[in-house]
């Protein structure tokens, strides 16, 4: 087996595609609810029963259009959405025969058909006055840009990285979404007439002032910053790599060096992605440290289940305080935690148990305690209000305190799912279109 084959086998899709007959049987199982809870639970409000019935009738082209009309990122959402807490979580079948319709896989079936036939969406002429810049080429910007371009507005997307797609390209676990699939979605948006300027750092070569001169409206879909540092001694040692860098590296290179004993710090979905990826890349053991207990862990239950199945070892109420090693990481020193009274948000605050220090040997340490806020970057824009490091927007329109600026996705919502970014991008597009039409009459 070549390295590429080995990599592909290790990261085989956890939700494989439905066959044609499987899809038909599953589609026919759908009750075709009215005012369907699945569609209401979807942030982009895809008409789920509508697209499923079109699969059942053999109208796969129409099914794909129903999806894409509501969510241009139908391909990636079908693969990465936490459907258990969204559409499938809302499915009435839970109360019928306990088996929700496999909406995510059916959506993928329609999307695979669409991309497989090489169909394109109708491209509108850029006939309307007003130019829009979308900063960041992740899901929020792609969704916003596509919707505006389809309405006839000229849109340019800027991103500092060489490939568009944001976390869809660089940050989603490989067994959920592959960069090549993320790029197919990018190409669909490009085919609508959206212009991409990649490897372009805003605030660097292109100053804010120039941006504002060239564009009437700016949409910020910049996401969040780097993984937050642990701020403990030894973090600079070789063998310490933050989760997002680790994931981006193995995805873009088709593999990455990995330790024998890997310790991941953090209890979110990204921490799980990093731990399971480490095992797939050949680590003998993957340990996950979380400073609270199992009940407080923010990762989705199905992600936690996956990690348990794959053999990730969980260490609850454990916080790293120092990383030790001579030339590279050799161990991590931890302290036991206990939970104090609940804070204002109802979460019990962890505090260290004095004298409980112990060491866990490891040769790779992956911090994954959330992404930092882009405070310095966002401070460059006038009249933009921030709250907790996120851009404050009108949820209905995505408009910021500065009426020329709109925002959506992680930089506004603090870090949610691809489908949330898609929905916010779409809503912002509607807000921007209204603003441009008001400006240009």
């Amino acid at each position: 087996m070549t390295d590429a084959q080995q990599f592909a086998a290790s990261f085989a899709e956890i939700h494989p595609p439905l066959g044609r007959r499987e899809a038909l049987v599953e589609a026919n199982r759908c009750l075709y609810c009215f005012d369907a809870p699945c569609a209401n639970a979807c942030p982009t409000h895809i008409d789920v029963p509508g697209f499923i019935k079109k699969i059942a009738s053999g109208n796969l082209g129409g099914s794909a259009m129903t999806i894409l009309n509501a969510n241009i990122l139908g391909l990636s959402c079908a693969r990465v959405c936490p459907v258990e807490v969204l559409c499938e979580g809302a499915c009435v079948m839970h109360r019928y025969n306990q088996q929700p319709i496999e909406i995510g896989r059916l959506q993928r079936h329609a999307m695979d058909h669409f991309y497989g036939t090489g169909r394109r969406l109708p491209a509108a002429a850029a006939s309307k006055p007003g130019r829009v810049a979308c900063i960041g080429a992740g899901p929020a910007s792609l969704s916003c840009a596509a919707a505006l371009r389809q309405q006839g507005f000229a849109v340019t997307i800027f991103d500092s990285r060489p490939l568009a797609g944001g976390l869809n390209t660089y940050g989603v676990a490989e067994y959920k979404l592959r960069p090549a699939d993320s790029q197919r979605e990018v190409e669909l948006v490009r085919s609508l007439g959206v212009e991409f300027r990649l490897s372009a750092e805003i605030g660097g070569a292109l100053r804010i002032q120039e941006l504002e001169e060239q564009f009437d409206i700016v949409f910020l879909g910049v996401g969040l910053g780097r993984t937050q540092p642990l701020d403990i001694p030894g973090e600079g040692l070789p063998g310490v790599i933050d989760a997002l860098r680790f994931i981006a590296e193995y995805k873009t290179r088709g593999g990455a060096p990995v330790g024998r004993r890997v310790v991941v710090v953090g209890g979110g979905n990204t921490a799980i992605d990093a731990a399971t990826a480490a095992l797939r890349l050949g680590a003998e053991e993957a340990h996950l440290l979380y400073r609270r207990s199992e009940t407080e862990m923010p990762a989705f239950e199905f992600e936690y289940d996956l990690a348990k199945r794959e053999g990730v070892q969980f260490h609850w109420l454990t916080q790293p305080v120092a990383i030790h090693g001579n030339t590279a990481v050799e161990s991590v020193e931890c302290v036991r935690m206990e939970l104090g009274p609940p804070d204002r948000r109802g979460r019990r605050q962890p505090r260290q148990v004095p004298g409980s220090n112990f060491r866990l040997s490891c040769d790779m340490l992956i911090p994954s305690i959330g992404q930092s806020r882009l405070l310095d970057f966002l401070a460059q824009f006038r009249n933009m209000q921030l709250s907790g490091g996120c851009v404050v927007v009108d949820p209905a329109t995505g408009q910021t305190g500065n009426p020329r600026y709109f925002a959506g996705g992680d930089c506004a919502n603090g870090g949610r799912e691809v489908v949330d970014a898609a929905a916010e991008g779409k809503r912002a597009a509607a807000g921007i279109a209204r603003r441009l039409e008001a400006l240009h009459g």
Partner: protein
Amino acid sequence: MADLTTHFAGIQSPNPFWLASGPPSNCGDQVQRAFDAGWGGAVWKTIGEPIVNVSSRYSSVDWNGLRMMGLNNIELITDRPIETNLREIAEVKKRYPKHAVIASLMVESRRAAWHEIVRRTEDAGADGLELNFGCPHGMSERGMGSAVGQVPEYAKLITEWVKEIARTPVLVKLTPNVADIRAIARAAKAGGADGLSAINTLNSITGVDLDTFTPRPDVGGQSSHGGYCGPAVKPIALHMVQQLAGDPECGLPVSGIGGISGWREAAEFLLLGCHSLQVCTAVMHYGYRIVEDMIEGLSNWMDEKGFRTLDDFRGLSLARVTEWKHLDLNYKIVARIHPELCIGCGLCYIACWDGAHQCIHIEGAATPEQLIAESRTRLAQTPAVVAVDTAHTPAARIPKVDEQECVGCNLCWLVCPVESCIAMDPVDTGRPAESWAQRGAP
């Protein structure tokens, strides 16, 4: 354990389940295997001068992923020599003396031809004869099958010819492709028939291939209308059987045919007066083995209801069928939704709005369009702290019936996927029973 022994027009069988004349009763080996599986009788695939068939011969109507809700065929009568069929009938009767073997017959409309086939068939040992006056395709173009069964005089005449020499009971199989099936039944009775079999298949084209544009079944780019049967035709068959069993002028026992695929349908045909039951499509779909559940299910149902024999409940529902003008206009039922069973699918709501009388409501929405519009503008987000309650239907999704406006049409109850969630409860209108006939037309 209920006794399923069947006595029909002088023919006995251990149970009422017979193979209908068709592909499953084409030869002796098949019939013997069917008897081993539990079938009580078989009507042999129609015997006559051997024909030549085409391919293909069958096509079906599928529905929502289910296969063969309805089946259509353009196959003709047997393609095997008369003497082969008769020899095999004799063999089967020798091995299975207690099972009913009925020979379905169709020959050209000459007295001598009918006399000859009747004599030979009875000599082979058949327990009875079924005259095929129903086949709607192919044979009718040659003056046989439904060409006979659609003209009362012809049906009477040929029945008379057969009765002139027949020593075994004579059944006439009726075509549904007529304006009033009772006219042919009365003619058969006038000709001396001992019983009826109903219904034969319905004229049909099941569909058109959307790539080749050829209707199905495709015979080299052409098609021809065929005979429709299977689950889809049961309601039509039940109606015709009720017409026959409820017709005092006819008064002949009936063997029920048409969409019987399980014990429930069997019980329905018996309740509407049938004496035996014939099955073809369900066997073509699943094989002879289906009879096990038919026998067991019917027997268990009879035990549950306290019926010892088929006579105990035969025709019990006939008196419940009347003309519309005699129905009570003052009887009223209303839909009641049991919220604890409602799964919140909204199907009753939209069915009532778009297909009935707009009396089921979702709180806060004046129309379905308004409901959808509000749902589409409501912001949804991936929940941050995950506790999705999948066990309970949100109260706002449970529709409410306006009982004053409800006309008791049953539509909501029919579309509801959950058993017993919607009940159609009688309400007292305070008015005495009164029919249209009693009220007197203005």
